[in-house]
């Protein structure tokens, strides 16, 4: 397999955790970047609260007082 001989010169106990950490940190960073730079991830994670808040119109003004 291509590049397999890397483990002849890099100890697997060093290289494998390094590789896994790079994958984990990279994917986490992408998701954090999406969460902070877009609106729709936050909205989606908030679920129905955000939908309800958006759908609900402003509260109507109080009704005028009925004549006595």
């Amino acid at each position, binding site marked *: *397999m291509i*590049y*397999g*001989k*890397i*483990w*002849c*010169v*890099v*100890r*697997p106990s060093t290289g*494998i955790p390094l*590789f896994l950490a790079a*994958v984990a940190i990279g*994917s986490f960073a992408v998701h954090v970047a999406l969460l902070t730079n877009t609106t*729709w991830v936050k*909205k*989606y994670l908030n679920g129905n609260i955000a939908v309800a808040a958006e759908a609900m119109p402003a509260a109507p003004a109080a009704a005028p007082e009925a004549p006595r």
Partner: protein
Amino acid sequence: MSDPDKVWPTGLTEGEAEEVHRNLIQGTQIFGMIAALAHLLAYIYSPWLK
């Protein structure tokens, strides 16, 4: 890199190094497939890109 029984500084032979690498590649492929499936589900069930 001609002697297959030579023990390299990491304590592995070429065959063992190849075996480590095969497993790492296989694990990466399985992780990738699971990630692709998760992204597909997220695309279907979330307002992603809509």
